[in-house]
C-alpha cells in the first residue's frame, strides 16, 4: 500500500512504517501521520460512481430493482485526501457520508468480459462520497451540485495493489461518526459487482489506467454536522478520516 503525501515542500510517496500511525517516505524518513498532508493517493482519469448499488441502501432510499447500474460521473476537483476537511453549506439540512470501495483501473479495458475483468484492476482505495441532499433535483440525477462539490469526495489514505487484496467481493465496510459505528456492509452484497461493472462500462466506453469506479454505499447514511469526525474503513485498505466544517469561512 502506498500514499501520496506533502511534507517539507514536496510531494512524496509514503508507505506504512513500523509502529502505529507512522509513515515512511521513499527517502527513508519516518513521520507521524499527522505531520504530513495526505493527498488523494492518485490523480485519476475518469471518475465513475454508483448510486444505489447495495440492496439495503436502495431500500433505505425507497428505490425498486434496477435493470442496469445507476452510474454518474464526477470531476477531479471533488477529491480530497485522508485527514481533510469537507465543507457543509451552512443552510443545508441533510448532508451524509457514503463509505465506498473505490476500484482503480490499471490497464485499458475495452469490451472486456466479466471473467477477465479483474485483470484490468490495479488496486483499491477507500472513498467517502458525500452528498448534500438539499440540492437534489430530478433532472440528470444525482446532479453535480449534490455530488460533485469541491472537496466532498475523500479518497485514501492508501492505494492498495490488487495483488494484496485476496477477495474484493468479500470486504467489510464500516463508518464511524465521532467514534460510534453508524454504517456497515460487505462488498458481497453489491447488486452489480466489480467484474459486472467493468464488463458493462467497457462495453460502451474505454476505461483507462487511473480511472476510478466508486462502487456504491450500503445502508446507514446519516446527517453529519460541523465538527463531526467521520472515519470510513474497509478491511485491509485502511481508515479514511474526514472532518466536517461549516462553510462560514467562505461567507456562505
Amino acid at each position, binding site marked *: 500500500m502506498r500514499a501520496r503525501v506533502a511534507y517539507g515542500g514536496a510531494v512524496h510517496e509514503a508507505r506504512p512504517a513500523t509502529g502505529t500511525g507512522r509513515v515512511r517516505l521513499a527517502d527513508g524518513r519516518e513521520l507521524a501521520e499527522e505531520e504530513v498532508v495526505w493527498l488523494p493517493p492518485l490523480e485519476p*482519469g475518469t471518475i465513475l460512481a454508483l448510486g444505489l448499488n447495495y440492496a439495503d441502501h436502495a431500500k433505505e432510499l425507497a428505490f425498486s430493482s434496477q435493470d442496469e447500474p445507476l452510474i454518474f*460521473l464526477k470531476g477531479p*476537483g471533488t477529491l480530497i485526501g485522508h485527514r481533510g476537511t469537507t465543507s457543509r453549506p451552512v443552510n443545508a439540512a441533510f448532508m451524509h457520508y457514503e463509505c465506498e470501495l473505490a476500484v482503480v483501473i490499471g490497464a485499458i479495458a475495452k469490451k472486456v468480459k466479466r471473467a477477465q475483468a479483474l485483470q484490468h484492476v490495479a488496486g483499491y482505495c477507500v472513498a467517502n462520497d458525500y452528498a448534500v441532499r438539499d440540492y437534489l*433535483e430530478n433532472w440528470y440525477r444525482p446532479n453535480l451540485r449534490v455530488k460533485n462539490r469541491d472537496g466532498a469526495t475523500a479518497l485514501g489514505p492508501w492505494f492498495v495493489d490488487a495483488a494484496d487484496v485476496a477477495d474484493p467481493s468479500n470486504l467489510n465496510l464500516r463508518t464511524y461518526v465521532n467514534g460510534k459505528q453508524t454504517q456497515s456492509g460487505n462488498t458481497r452484497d453489491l447488486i452489480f459487482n466489480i467484474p459486472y461493472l467493468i464488463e458493462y462500462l467497457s462495453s460502451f466506453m474505454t476505461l483507462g489506467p487511473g480511472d476510478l469506479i466508486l462502487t456504491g454505499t450500503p445502508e446507514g447514511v446519516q446527517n453529519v454536522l460541523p465538527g463531526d469526525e467521520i472515519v470510513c474503513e474497509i478491511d485491509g485498505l485502511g481508515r479514511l478520516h474526514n472532518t466536517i466544517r461549516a462553510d462560514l469561512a467562505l461567507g456562505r
Partner: protein
Amino acid sequence: MTFDFAPFVLSGRVYGSLLNHRTALVAVESVAHKPPYNGLPRAPVLFIKPRNTLSVSGSPIEVPAGLQELEVAAMLGLVIGITACRVSEARAHEYIAGYTLVNDVSVPQPNYYRPSVRYKARDGFCPMGPRVAARDSIGVPDALTLRTFIDGSLAQEASMSQLVRPIARLLADVTEFMTLAPGDVLAVAAAAPAPRIRAGQTVSIEGDGLGTLANPVVAGSE
C-alpha cells in the same frame, strides 16, 4: 488541442449545461411539472463528458450497432483561463480564455431524470475544435450563433442570445460549488430539437470566428 495563449492546452475535463437554451426548456415544458421531474430545474443542469469521449474535427462518430441514428448538440465551449472558484457574475468573463466548438453526441432517449451514462459517454462522442479562439477575438459570446449542417444542409441554428442562464450567470452558479481549472471546458447552449445523424453522413458545426468542427458518421461494429 493546443493554442498560443494561456492556458495553452485543454485539461481534458469537459462539462456541459443542458436545458439552458429556451428551445430546450420549451421542449420539456409539457412534462416538467409532472413526475418524475415535479418542476423546472432550479440549479444548472450539468453533465460530464469523460476523456474517452473526447475527439477532434475529422474523427469518425460511430453509430453503435443496432441503432439507426444519433443526436448531436452544437455547443459553445467556454475554455477556462484561470482558476474559477465562486466567481461573481460581473467578473465571470475574465475567467474565460477563449472559445471552442463542442459537439455533444448522444444516443437518442427521452429521459432527463436519471439517464444512463451509456447515452452520452461512448467513445468519440465529444468532438471539439477545430481550434480555441481567444476571448477577445470573439467579442460578446452571447451574440454568437452556432449552425449545424448535415451533409451541407442547415439542420439547426442556435443563438446564444436565447440562453436561459446567460454565460456569466452560469459561470457564477457553477463555480459556487465546483471550481473550474485552467483548460477545463464548460459547454453551453444545446438547443432543441436536436438534429439526428446517420452512418454515411457528415455533421459539421460552425460559429463565426470559431471555424468548422466536421465529423463523419460511421456504422459501429458489434
